[in-house]
Structure formats: structure tokens, C-alpha cells
């Protein structure tokens, strides 16, 4: 009971790993592009959680700065991804990722 009641860095890392796994499952199994993009956001958030937890562990701020840059990247990624999604929807009238097979051999 004692290791569960005393919150250490490992607890945050395990939580981040669980969130990362949920994101990976979403990316690998869903067919809706919007939900795949949201799962990518889950993955980025798991990474952010790890960065902030390590920042807390080492007593510095580098991890928090890195987390802010990751959030910036997530914003850019979401904007471009949703732009591609709108272009795709205009051409194919669907949001099903299995229909993105024009380049498939």
C-alpha cells in the first residue's frame, strides 16, 4: 500500500505511458480520420506529461519549456492535419481513412 500512497515520478510516468498506449490504439484501429488526429493529440499529451514530470524531478524548467514547444507543434500539426482532412473530404466525400489509398500499390 505504501508505494501507492506516496506519489513519485514513476506514477506520472506510468500514467503517461497508459495515455500513450490509448493514443497508439486509437491511431492503429480507428477508421475515422478526426478520431485518429485526436489520438495523436493524446500521444503528444502523454509526452508532455512525461516532460513536466521529469522537469519536476530534476528541479529545472527545461522540461516545461520543452512541453510548451511540444504544444506549439501540436497546434501546427492540428491545423495542417485538419486542412488536409477538409481537402480530402472535398474530394472523396468521406472521412474514412481506409479510402486514402490512391498511392497504394
Amino acid at each position, binding site marked *: 500500500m505504501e508505494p501507492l500512497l*506516496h506519489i*513519485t*515520478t*514513476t*506514477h*506520472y510516468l*506510468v*500514467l503517461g*505511458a*497508459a*495515455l*500513450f*498506449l*490509448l*493514443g497508439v*490504439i486509437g491511431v*492503429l*484501429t*480507428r*477508421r*475515422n480520420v*478526426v478520431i485518429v488526429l*485526436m*489520438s495523436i*493529440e*493524446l500521444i503528444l*499529451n502523454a509526452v*508532455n506529461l512525461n516532460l*513536466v*514530470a521529469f*522537469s*519536476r*524531478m*530534476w*528541479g529545472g*524548467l*527545461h522540461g*516545461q*519549456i520543452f512541453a*510548451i*514547444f511540444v*504544444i506549439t507543434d*501540436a*497546434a*501546427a*500539426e*492540428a*491545423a*495542417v492535419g485538419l*486542412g*488536409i*482532412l*477538409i*481537402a480530402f*473530404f*472535398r474530394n472523396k466525400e*468521406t*472521412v474514412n*481513412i*481506409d479510402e486514402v489509398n490512391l498511392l497504394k500499390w
Partner: protein
Amino acid sequence: MAPVATPFFFYLFAAIMLVGGIMVITRKNPVHSALALIIALLAQASIYLMLYAPFVAGVQIILYAGGIMVLFLFVIMLVSIDRSIRERQFNSQRIAGLIAATALGGLFIAVYMKGTSVFPEHALSTIENDNTQQVATMLYGQSMFPFEIASLLLLVAIIGAVVMAKKRI
């Protein structure tokens, strides 16, 4: 000041985050997924507060839950979801995907079981006051160059998004 009831709040917010994450990847309707993701992001902001990162928590709420998720909801409204709700939700590689994710989870468990001794038991002394000031000093001092690169990246992303979403330039 000593934190109050840290384990209780950690497990509460962790549970909210995980339930939100599970709902994101299992709901049929993307709007429900987006709302669940907003809940998960807000719970994560609370976890940032518990890690003494109030600035990152604020950025998380304003930028993630406020900005990116509104973008998501707008796009969900732009594309028609009636057809996709009636379709099969999981693709044909779902078994292989689950196996791959389980393998990754096993790897994580192995790493954390073996690596626990590397992490110190207690958090070291961290800068608990003036967090925003310290972050700003570092962002505009030491990390000036990455900061400018990030602004360039956002500019490229804006132009790219407009070029791709617009019918005719």
C-alpha cells in the same frame, strides 16, 4: 506549503484522464470524442498544477482545451459525419494493432519495473514560486532561437492549412 491530499487528487485526475482517453478512442460520434478529449486535457492541466507547473497548465487550458479543440469541433461540423457514424468504426487491422499496442505496453512495464531505481524517490527541490517569470526568462533568453523557429513553424502551418483547405487560391 505542504501539498494537501496529493495521492487522492492524483488518482482522481488520473482516473478522469484515462476514462476520457478511453472514451476518445471508443465513441462513434467524433463530437463525443472531442468533448471527452477536452475533459482529459483539463484533468491533465490539473496534474500539471500538481507538478508545480502553473504556466504549462494555463497554456494547456487556453491553447489546447480552448484553441485546438475548437478547431477540431469546427472541422467536425464542416465534414458530414452522418455516413461515418453508420459505418464500421474499427479497421480490419484492429487485432494486429491491439497486439502491437500490447507489446508496446509490455515494453513500458518492463522498462518501469527495471528502471525504478534510476528515479529518485522524492522530488528534488524545484522552483515553486515565480514559475511564469522563470519560464519567460528562459524562453526569451536561453531558448530564444527555438522560440523564433517555433514562430516560423506556426507561420508555415497557417499558410499550409489555408492552402490546403481553400478551394481555389
